[in-house]
């Protein structure tokens, strides 16, 4: 099992979810986060006082998937979330030791 964590541009969320649905992925956790990588922030001015805002709004998706589907899902994410500009985000893939369905004690791939 792998955990795929993708940080993407907020306006790409719908495209990404459509793409995931298209390949039959039916579980995802989404959170609104703030952060930045190489993308520069923007400037805000209130009565002449300038503020650099470098923590930008992003969306984080977390999916736990079977090892066999990692490449397929990663490919769909890359394709749907990409604009080609700085600020598109990143994907991280982690090993997952165990998954348990709270309702009925299913474990491992059966719990996904």
């Amino acid at each position: 099992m792998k955990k795929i964590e993708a940080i993407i541009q907020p306006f790409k969320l719908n495209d990404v979810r459509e793409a995931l649905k298209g390949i039959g992925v039916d579980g995802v956790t989404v959170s609104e986060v703030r952060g930045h990588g190489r993308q520069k922030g923007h400037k805000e001015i209130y009565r002449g006082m300038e503020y650099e805002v470098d923590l930008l709004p992003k969306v984080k998706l977390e999916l736990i998937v079977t090892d066999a589907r990692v490449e397929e899902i990663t490919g769909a994410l890359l394709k749907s979330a990409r604009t080609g500009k700085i600020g598109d985000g990143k994907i991280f893939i982690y090993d997952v030791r165990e998954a348990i369905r709270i309702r009925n004690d299913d474990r491992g791939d059966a719990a996904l």
Partner: protein
Amino acid sequence: MRSILVALSGAVVSAAVAQAQPVLDSRLSAVESAARSAQSAGDNAWMLVSAALVLMMTGPGLALFYGGLVRRKNVLGTMMHSFVLMAIVTVLWAFIGYSLVFSEGTGFIGGGHYAFLDGVGTSPNTDYAPTIPQLTFMVYQLMFAIITPALISGAFAERMKFSAMLLFTLLWTLIVYFPMAHMVWGKGGWLNAFLGGAIPCLDFAGGTVVHITSGVSALVCALYLGKRQGYLIEPIKPHSVVLSVIGACLLWVGWFGFNAGSALGSSGLATSAFVATHFAAAAATLGWMFAEWICSGKPSVLGAVSGSVAGLVAITPASGFVKPVPALGIGFAAGVICYFMVTVAKHRLGYDDSLDAFGVHGVGGFTGAMLTGVLATNAVNDALKDSAGRPQALGVVDGHWGQLGNQAIGAAIAIAIAVVGTYLILRVCDAICGVRVSPEHETEGLDLSMHGEEGYNFES
């Protein structure tokens, strides 16, 4: 025979006239009295509405304008500054305030004749407003006394103790505002242009009394309290420019009561002041907006609404003395000048006037006071007559250069009283209860530390 007839008919006619005379007199006096009460009804209706409009400027107008400009953790504390003054100044006004401003006393301060509103009833006070009940005049003027200290709160927002703020504004209203208002508006006041002042200062609705005094006092407060924690180090952004826009719009509308109401009747002069007020606000909005657009690249919404307030401040002393097009000029000048004051000069000088009470009210008020000396004309307001009964020349446009000096003296007295009074009062408050909150409370925010509540409870 004919002469007898003529004499007879003459006697009949004169008897009839003698009989009709008392009837005509009583009918005439009935008509006069009906005309008077009709005028009184019209004037009183407008003045009661104006009083309500001026109160609306403090709450919700100023409360929202200032509340939006502070950080989320201080929104209630800031709104409370305006709201509590609606209560505390009212009580002070009833006890002694109205009397100290409007009863006859010295050139500096009024007497105790109207203390506890003794003798203030529904009959008019002919010195000030002969067509409305004195109670209406009293409550209208009260609304000015409420908003003036509320304006200062912009300078000490986010860091003053609530107890100290109550004591400060109470003493400030008593020691700075009442004398200043008496000098300019009270009968026998030194600066009163209409009721026997030695130095006739033109201040139609309170540019000197309200805005210069509050703006300069705000600067003294900002310097005395020192900068907020993290000023220029961490971002201290307005938490809701939306609230500030709503507040500024309410101020704009309320200002019609402030300025047009200062005609003290539903007259042509009220209309003239109404128009001048609106035009100045419009031009000032554009002045600030374009200055900011040119200098910093974007026309901000906060800039546009701040500009409108600057224009309203500047037109306040001039509103009953200038024509519409000069009003546009006053507004535009105030918009541009106040923009440079709060964006360039403030940062160079390095004081933390949290919400720019000095930059907008002090500087805008001074700009307006001086431009009133230039643009005031008896074509708009002919209430001042010379010894031959002709309207007096008012400002420079009427050829009266001396008025500029009078305006400057009025402003200088306001500045002097504001600086000395505010500093002494702050020292007293500091000695009694300390004026600034502790660093822990400042970090926590005034809403929780002073009032035990939060403005926005998202989980409930």
